[in-house]
C-alpha cells in the first residue's frame, strides 16, 4: 500500500477542483492506498459543515464524509479557516484542523504528493 497526499488550495463553491480531489482520493482509496488531503487557502471551504446542496454547485460533504469514515485523513489549515470566519465548531465531524507543518509532515511520509495550487 502506498500513500498519496493531495494539497488542495482551490475553493469548493464555483470550482471543480475539489470535485477532482475527492474523486481522485476515492479512486486511490478503492485501490487500497492511504490518502491524506490538506485543505489550504480557499480549499478550506470544503471542511465547513452545513453546506446546502444545490444542483448548480458541487456538493461534496456526503462523499467526503464517507471517505473520512473509510480512512482518508482530511485536514484543513487552521489559519486559513479562521481568516475566513469559520471556526473549530464549524468543522465537519471527523475532519482535522492543523497548522501548515502538518502538510509537510504528510508529504514526508507520502509516496506521491499532488499539490494543486489556488486559482
Amino acid at each position: 500500500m502506498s500513500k498519496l497526499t493531495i494539497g488542495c488550495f482551490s475553493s469548493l463553491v464555483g470550482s471543480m477542483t475539489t470535485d477532482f480531489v475527492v474523486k481522485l482520493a476515492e479512486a486511490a482509496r478503492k485501490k487500497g492506498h492511504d490518502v491524506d488531503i490538506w485543505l489550504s487557502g480557499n480549499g478550506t471551504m470544503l471542511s465547513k459543515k452545513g453546506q446546502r446542496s444545490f444542483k448548480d454547485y458541487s456538493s461534496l460533504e456526503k462523499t467526503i464524509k464517507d471517505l473520512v469514515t473509510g480512512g482518508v485523513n482530511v485536514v484543513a489549515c487552521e489559519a486559513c479557516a479562521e481568516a475566513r470566519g469559520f471556526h473549530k465548531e464549524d468543522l465537519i465531524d471527523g475532519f482535522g484542523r492543523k497548522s501548515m507543518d502538518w502538510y509537510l509532515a504528510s508529504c514526508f511520509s507520502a509516496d506521491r504528493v499532488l499539490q494543486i495550487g489556488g486559482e
Partner: protein
Amino acid sequence: MKLGVFVSQYSRENDTLSRLKAEKLGVILVQNGVYNAALKEDGKSSPILDKDATIYALSEDLQSRGLGVGNVDSKVKIVDYDGLVDLIFNEYEKIIWL
C-alpha cells in the same frame, strides 16, 4: 526523473510545461486542459501534443465538456480516475499540477 504533469488549463502554450525536462515525461490533461486533446484552432492541434511526452486525458472531464472519443487526437490516451491512480503510483515518481 519520471515526471507526471497535470495540465488543468486550456492554453496552446504553457511556458512552464515547455521548459520541464525529464527522462520520462507524462502530460495528463484534466479539467479545461482536456480541450488541448480535442480542439484544433485554425485546423491545428495544440502544440502541447507535440511535446516529447506521453499524453493522457481524463475521460470524465472530456465527457463533461461534450467531447467524445472521436474528438480526441490519436496521440492522446484516455484514462479514467482509476487510471490516474495507476499513473500516479506506477508510471511516474513525481507529479506536479500546472
